[in-house]
């Protein structure tokens, strides 16, 4: 746990870390409170796609979808924590002081794991809270969304780390992440439409997006007869895990072989 302790020493005095973490936690909580009370709405009049359900079991998918937007704060946090090392050249200093090159990468990997675990914990506690607040019942159906949220965060943060390790500058990395997201969204839609398939959903970030869809959209699309069957969720789980492994393998090769 030494590597994680070192990462913690680097972050705990960093104002931007606390600002981004604070924004993520507070905005996510506030948004859900707002949606639960129908202050935040999507739709018109009494129809609110956001607040469709904050009771079990739908609270998990509902909050999971909203979670997928807020994870960007964490992705930016991850980018900055890596690009800082390059702009201060502390990545070199860490190695010079005796850190193994792979340990430097693993420190960041543990940070990603820890942030993913903690934000998933926040998601789980909030889900339980809102579920119990709105009539209680059995929280177990759809509880697998908690695991999906973890995998989703892991995929997004690892992808952000991949970009930051290659681009090295925080501003450029954040721009690149958003540009890629835009590109991927368009490309996925284009492929699915052009080839009348769902395989476009297997792009790196989309594969995890499919784990946390907007619940109402899923039910709407199931009413529309479609030629293409949605891919089983296992495929998306498998794809997400594969992508995370691929990012790791690429970064491992890079950190071992290149000049720092």
């Amino acid at each position, binding site marked *: 746990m*030494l590597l994680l*302790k*070192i990462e913690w*020493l*680097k972050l705990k*005095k*960093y*104002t931007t870390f606390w600002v981004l973490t604070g924004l993520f936690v507070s905005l996510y909580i506030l948004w859900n409170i707002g949606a639960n009370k129908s202050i935040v709405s999507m739709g018109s009049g009494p129809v609110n796609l956001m607040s469709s359900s904050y009771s079990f079991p739908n609270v998990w998918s509902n909050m999971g979808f909203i979670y997928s937007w807020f994870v960007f704060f964490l992705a930016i946090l991850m980018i900055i924590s890596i690009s*800082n090392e390059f702009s*201060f*050249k*502390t990545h*070199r*200093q*860490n*190695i*010079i*002081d*005796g*850190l*193994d*090159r792979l340990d430097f990468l693993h420190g960041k990997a543990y940070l990603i794991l820890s942030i993913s675990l903690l934000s998933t914990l926040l998601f789980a506690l909030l889900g339980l809270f809102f579920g119990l607040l709105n009539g209680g019942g059995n929280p177990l159906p759809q509880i697998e969304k908690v695991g999906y949220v973890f995998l989703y965060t892991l995929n997004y943060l690892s992808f952000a780390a991949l970009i930051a390790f290659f681009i090295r500058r925080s501003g450029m990395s954040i721009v690149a992440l958003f540009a890629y997201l835009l590109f991927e969204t368009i490309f996925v839609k284009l492929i699915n439409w052009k080839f009348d398939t769902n395989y476009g959903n297997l792009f790196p970030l989309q594969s995890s997006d499919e784990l946390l869809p907007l619940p109402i959209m899923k039910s709407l699309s199931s009413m529309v007869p479609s030629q293409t069957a949605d891919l089983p969720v296992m495929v998306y789980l498998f794809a997400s895990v594969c992508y995370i492994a691929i990012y790791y393998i690429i970064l491992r090769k890079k950190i071992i*072989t*290149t*000049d*720092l």
Partner: protein
Amino acid sequence: MSTVLTIHNIKKNYGPIQALKGIELNVPKSSVYGILGPNGSGKTTLLGILLDVLKADHGEYQWNEFNSAQQARQQIGSLLETPNFYHYMTAEDNLKIAVQIKQRGFDDVDRVLKQVNLYERRQSKFSTFSLGMKQRLAIASALLGNPSILVLDEPTNGLDPVGIAEIRELIIQLSHEGMTIIIASHMLDEIEKVCTHVAILKLGNLIIEGSVGEVLNDEDTIEINASNREKLIDVLKNFDAIKSMKLEKNIQLTLNPNRNIEQLNQYCFEHGIILNHIIQRKRSLESKFMEITQ
């Protein structure tokens, strides 16, 4: 004398540019080993390879007192190029990270901060430091854990004359305590004042290596004169120990290898010349360096 570092045939290219062309070095224990060379000669590249931030294309190195390169880096103190610290953190917090990586105790932080006169500013953020203070903090970081080997790349960069003198004193003091110090610099008088050994690099080649005495000694110039100058010159012309002779206000000589000033003096005396002026001048590293690298 045992060697703490062995470097064997290290080569490094940056694209088409050969930065190091097969460097061979042995650094003796407890030496102050100066690596000299003009800008772009490969000094920092060589140290970068030894500290694993750069990868050599060929060759190998061995820190002989340690089991692995990582263990060596943890145990030796290093300063490479610019001081690299987290700008938003205080001097003390920055050193705490280095201490964690080196797996040493936190109590060492205060000691090294006092050693470089930064203890009073330990709670100041790194971003508020002057260049000289940043450099001193980097030296403090290198001193964490009382290393037996110190690797310093241009350690007096950015320091004022007082700071330079302080660092020089510190290096001399540490070397007296038995520490091996490897120091790269293009400031020759700095090296000359502290080093026991030198290696001179030029365009990625090792030009010369050895103790300061070996590199410079046989090149000492001897200045002599006598009241009968003409006779002295005639006598010297027939002396086989003379390598070169320059006639200036005094007569400047260099001697062939294995001949010394005592033999010269005796020869003159036996030929009826009493010298009234005799000075042995150590050749300066600067003149040697200029001759080699031009």
